[in-house]
C-alpha cells in the first residue's frame, strides 16, 4: 500500500483566511482524491485531483472555494479559501494504488478548526 503524509496535521484558523493542505505520496499514483469528514457524517468527496489538468469537483463544491493543484504524480494540495466556521472538518487525501486493483488508501487527515 502507498504511504501518504499530510501537512499540517491540524490547524486553527480565523474566519476569512485561507489554508493550504499538502498531500505527499511515496510512490507515483494515477488517482488522488480529496475528502471532507465532518462529525457524525460520512466521508464526502470534494474533488478528484487530476495531474496536468483541472480538478474534477463533486456537486456542491467549487474551484473558487477549494482550489486544488496536482503538479506531479506524488503530490497535491487543497486550499480551503475564505474560511467560515462551517469549514471546520477533517480533510483527507486518498490515492488508488493501481496495479489493476482499485483499493483506495487514505492519508492521516488534517483537522481544521475555524474560529
Amino acid at each position: 500500500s502507498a504511504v501518504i503524509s499530510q501537512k499540517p496535521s491540524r490547524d486553527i484558523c480565523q474566519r476569512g483566511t485561507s489554508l493550504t493542505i499538502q498531500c505527499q505520496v511515496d510512490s507515483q499514483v494515477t488517482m488522488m482524491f480529496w475528502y471532507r469528514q465532518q462529525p457524525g457524517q460520512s466521508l464526502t468527496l470534494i474533488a478528484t485531483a487530476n495531474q496536468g489538468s483541472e480538478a474534477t469537483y463533486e456537486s456542491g463544491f467549487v474551484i473558487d472555494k477549494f482550489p486544488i493543484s496536482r503538479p506531479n504524480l506524488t503530490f497535491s494540495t487543497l486550499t480551503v479559501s475564505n474560511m467560515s466556521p462551517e469549514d471546520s472538518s477533517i480533510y483527507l487525501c486518498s490515492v488508488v494504488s493501481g496495479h489493476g486493483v482499485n483499493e483506495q488508501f487514505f492519508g492521516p487527515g488534517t483537522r481544521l478548526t475555524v474560529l
Partner: protein
Amino acid sequence: QKEVEQDPGPLSVPEGAIVSLNCTYSNSAFQYFMWYRQYSRKGPELLMYTYSSGNKEDGRFTAQVDKSSKYISLFIRDSQPSDSATYLCGMGSNFGNEKLTFGTGTRLTIIP
C-alpha cells in the same frame, strides 16, 4: 434516501465476542465494496476489499456481500480491545472511476 445506510452505533460488546457490522445500499450499480477501520484522530485504514457476492476471510475478519439484497457485512471474530474504532463501509460502481460512497461509520467499543 441515502445511497448507503450504516447504523452509527455506538456498539459495545465484551472482549472475545463476534461482532457484526452492516451496511445497506440502494444503488445496484455498486460493484466493489470496502471496509475501513478508523481510530480516533487517524485516517481510515483499509481492512477488506471485495467485488463479488459471497464471503472473503482475512484472519479474524470476514467480509460478506449479498448483491441481491444490497447488503454487506463485516464480521470480527474473537474481538479484542484494539478493535475499538469506527468502521466505515465504502462502495464504488465503476472500475475506471474510483469514486467511493461511504456510510456514516459505526463506532465500536470492545469491553475488556
